[in-house]
């Protein structure tokens, strides 16, 4: 297992990601995953969304929306494999893949939002 000092920090990220996911992800999926594709509501145009996404506060919002819930996933998924499926011998590999994936997603989100013209 990792050092306990790491665990507290990672748990904070897990917890913060859980809060962000609980409050914000349902409405996003409802709009972009169901309401727009199924024609319940008219999808926003590129010309409407772009100025919104360019706003600094919205960029920070989108960055947090993408990044922190990934660490929530990393934590839960790691323990699902560990407790649920009892994959204990691959602990280090799973740790690296989960948090590495979350870190990669964070970097991609930061890059995309930073370079959004």
């Amino acid at each position: 297992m990792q050092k306990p000092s790491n665990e507290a920090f990672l748990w904070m990220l897990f917890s913060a990601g859980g809060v962000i996911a609980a409050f914000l992800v349902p409405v996003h999926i409802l709009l972009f995953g169901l309401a727009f594709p199924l024609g319940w509501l008219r999808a926003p145009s590129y010309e409407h969304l772009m100025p919104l996404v360019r706003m600094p506060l919205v960029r920070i919002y989108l960055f947090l929306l993408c990044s922190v819930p990934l660490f929530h996933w990393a934590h839960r998924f790691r323990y699902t494999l560990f407790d649920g499926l009892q994959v204990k011998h691959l602990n280090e590999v799973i740790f690296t893949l989960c948090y590495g994936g979350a870190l990669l997603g964070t970097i991609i989100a930061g890059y995309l939002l930073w370079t959004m013209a």
Partner: protein
Amino acid sequence: MNRVAQPTVEGVPAYTEFHPRWYRPHVSVYWWLGGWRYLRFILRELSSVFVAAFVVVTLVGLRALRNGPDAYARFMHHLENPAVIALSTLSFFFVLFHSITWFNLAPSAMAIRFRGKRLPDVVVAAPNYVLWLVVSVAVAWLVLR
């Protein structure tokens, strides 16, 4: 190698070369199928996979926005693919499950007392639902405006 047993204190077992047997009951890999509570726990944990899937789709969408109007139109068209709609529907229910279980944890995480009595669980969890509604309406208003 012969090891001579050391003189021992009365009542304390002598040294043995073998590790003592631990009591470790074997738990089946499918323990979470053993009851609705266990299954609910593992489904709640698995909701995180759909949260991660949402982030991936969102990142693809942001990349499309960054690449211009044509890329954005193609992305919105891909969202209409039946397989993507199926994923969105499944994700929506899993994420709702995550939200509800998360909000309902609040009374367990903090016991708020008022006039010496502990507030009922419903009262502690309710503000979460109010805030959830407010935040959701705000996001929808910004996107749809």
